């Protein structure tokens, strides 16, 4: 099972002094019918805790396809970030539709939690967010998405 939304807000200090994880409404677990579980197929966790692989860039054509893909489910449509011509979004998917999104779907995995945990670690060690987020722990500009997408072995060195 993957929690999918490991953030500081979701770690609660209980009265017995233990730290407990809460808020499982973004969690992924295997369905009994063996259906594959994709990232973003239900409630989208806060975008500030997502790993680079959860983001994608959309070209103009893809953007149109993106709009069509989410047309009838406007409320569930993932956030998009745009700057100087480039548009970014998360690789969320819709359930129960035959058409495919204009990006590769991403299987949900524990890597999501691992990345998020790393972000917490960084914050606790430095007192700063590795990537700047708003108060709801969401990424708020395309620049930040570019930073995340640009993360590689050399980053931070």
């Amino acid at each position, binding site marked *: *099972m*993957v*929690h999918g939304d*490991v*953030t*500081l*807000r*979701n*770690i*609660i*200090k*209980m*009265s017995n002094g*233990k*730290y*407990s*994880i*809460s*808020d*499982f*409404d*973004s*969690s*992924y*677990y*295997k369905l*009994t019918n063996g259906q594959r*579980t994709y990232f973003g197929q*239900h*409630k989208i966790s806060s975008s500030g805790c997502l*790993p*680079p*692989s959860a983001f994608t860039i959309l070209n103009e054509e893809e953007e149109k396809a993106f709009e069509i893909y989410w047309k009838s489910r406007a409320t569930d449509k993932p956030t998009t970030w745009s700057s100087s011509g480039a548009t970014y979004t998360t690789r969320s998917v819709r359930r129960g539709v035959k058409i495919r999104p204009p990006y590769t779907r*991403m*299987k*949900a*995995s*524990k*890597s*999501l*939690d*691992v*990345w998020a*945990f*790393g972000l*917490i*670690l960084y*914050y*606790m*060690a*430095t007192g700063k967010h590795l990537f700047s987020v708003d108060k*709801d722990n969401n990424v708020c500009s395309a620049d930040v998405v570019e930073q995340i997408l640009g*993360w*590689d*072995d050399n*980053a*931070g060195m």
Partner: protein
Amino acid sequence: MHHAVKNGASKDIIRCLIESSPESITVQDNHMNAPLHAYLKNEKLEGSLSSSIISMLLSPTVASLVDRKNRTSLHLAVIAKKIIRLKALRMIIDANRNSLLAKDSHGRTPLHIAFLEESVGMDILKLLLQDPIQSGIHHRAAMVEDNLGKLPLQFACENGISNEQELSALIEAHPMSIIATDSKGRSPLHALFINKKVAKSVSVATVLALLAGHGDFDGQCTVKMEDEYSSLPIHYAVKNGAASEVIAMLIETQPESACIPNGDGDLPIHLIFSRRNEIIEDGGEPLDFLQMLIRPVSLSREACKTSGSAGSMYPIHIACNYFLSLDIYENILRSYPKCAKMKNSEGLLPLEVFQSQKSNVKNESDASIFMTIQVEIFARNTNIDQFKRNDSLLESIVSRIQSEISNDGVLSETSIILWVWLCSYDNPDDENDNYTDTVDEIFNSIDRDLFNDLLSIKDDHGSSINDIACSKVKTLIQKHYYFVGKFIFEPVPPIHRSHDNVIVGAFLINLNDNGELSSEISKPVVIKFMMKSDSYRREVESRSVFDDNLTDNVVHILFHFSLDGNRVDDIRFKNDIQDEKLLEPLVAQGIDLQYYRSAIVMERGMCDVEDEFNHSLFTKADTVKCLKQVGKALLTFHDHGQCKFHCFIHTKVITYSFFKSVYLLQIWSMVMLH
């Protein structure tokens, strides 16, 4: 001459005597009787008085002479009304018309006298009612009071020998006499019932004549007129045994008259018992008679508070001494609920008195009415040891509440009192002395939908059942009232609100394993209300993956509810959220539960880590502790989910293997912090 008239001399002899001494007819003997007086008083006479003798003895002077008792010959003629001819009477009147107004030593006019002993008859009455002077002032005999302030009408009523026609004639002659009172403040209507012998034979027609009055004077007000002893006509009527139709008429005219106590503090109903034996002898229908008198009383609080001159005989006691119709008991108890706690002179409470009526229960319908009456009385005084554990009484209370709430959705006044009592009764000295079982029986026998109706009932101070219930019943309510009733919501804004969920703080009222209210302080919880059923499903199902032993580092769900579910809790949630009162604190925060279709209840933590960290409460050790525990928990999730994922994303900073070694992590954190 005196001897002659007294001893029956013939008219020739009398004429002879008069001729020899004409003035002898005006001579008065030592009793002040003129010969005419002597003749009219003649007791030895057989047959009727001779008109010719009268005419011989009569002169205007004679007609103005009075005897020792100040009576004119007209007075005496009226006394002899049975044996005098109308013609003779007319002659006497015409000889001195002023004698119509003459007063004897009691101040009575001939008209007064006419109503003594025997019925006067209309013919004589008409003569006596003439105007003394043909024209001029209207001063008639009907307007003259005797020394006791009684007008002829009063006098006639008191002596009770007149029929309604005669009374009507008197009223017509002096309409105001209908409301005139004598020196004791009594109206003619009082007078009708003053004498025991007269009162019994008063006819409806007579009363009608008095009530009807004449012209501007309406007799109806006299029904409520008090004499100097503060007694109304009805008091005398009841006391002196007037016919029940007559009393019925008085009550019908002024129902309040049955509710007014006399100077001794007796209501008319109390006065029945001064002649109780007679009623029973009557063999008529004493119950109807009683009901007639007590029905107006039952509607008056003041009257229901009147205990009678003998003391401690409240209307409720009287009612309980008989098996009357239900509405009387209901009304008395409604007018003066406290009467159920009053003891009679034998020290018995109404409910105890009523037990004597068991013998009057003849059939099933009687039995059910008998029980209903008992319940009505009991409701107003539940503190009688003898009855408060009476099984059949309790059974009847239960079925009454059940049927009222099921059929009408509301409880009657009595049932509300009983329901409040059942829920709130608590004996501090005996923890088993309460009605939890009875309340449970009611809960279990009614429709779930009605549950809220029963709980929304308020006592007479406006407190809800939840507030007044004894602790055991409260627990019982919690058990039945599963969701909302279990929590006390915090009157502060929600902890968190997003577009599809709201998290509010609340306290869980503690229940132990037996479902009883525990003495511990209520447990703080958070309740997350969700719009999306998918979120709800994930919250619940994901946690079901690990049981308690697996990890402590998860905020566990204590309860969960969904409007789309069919578990017992879900069904309760459905019912509970319809209770506006309970949801008030939520509604106040703009949380409409018809949109938030599901909720989970979790233990409330002290704070989240972001807050704790940002408020500099975090030490190095805390950081390590926190990360270790979170890491451990995540590991447990990842290992125990039903889903075996492939590590699809190549995370570039922290590898899974690194993450797995929590000890390394600890060292790493320490290094970073230094």
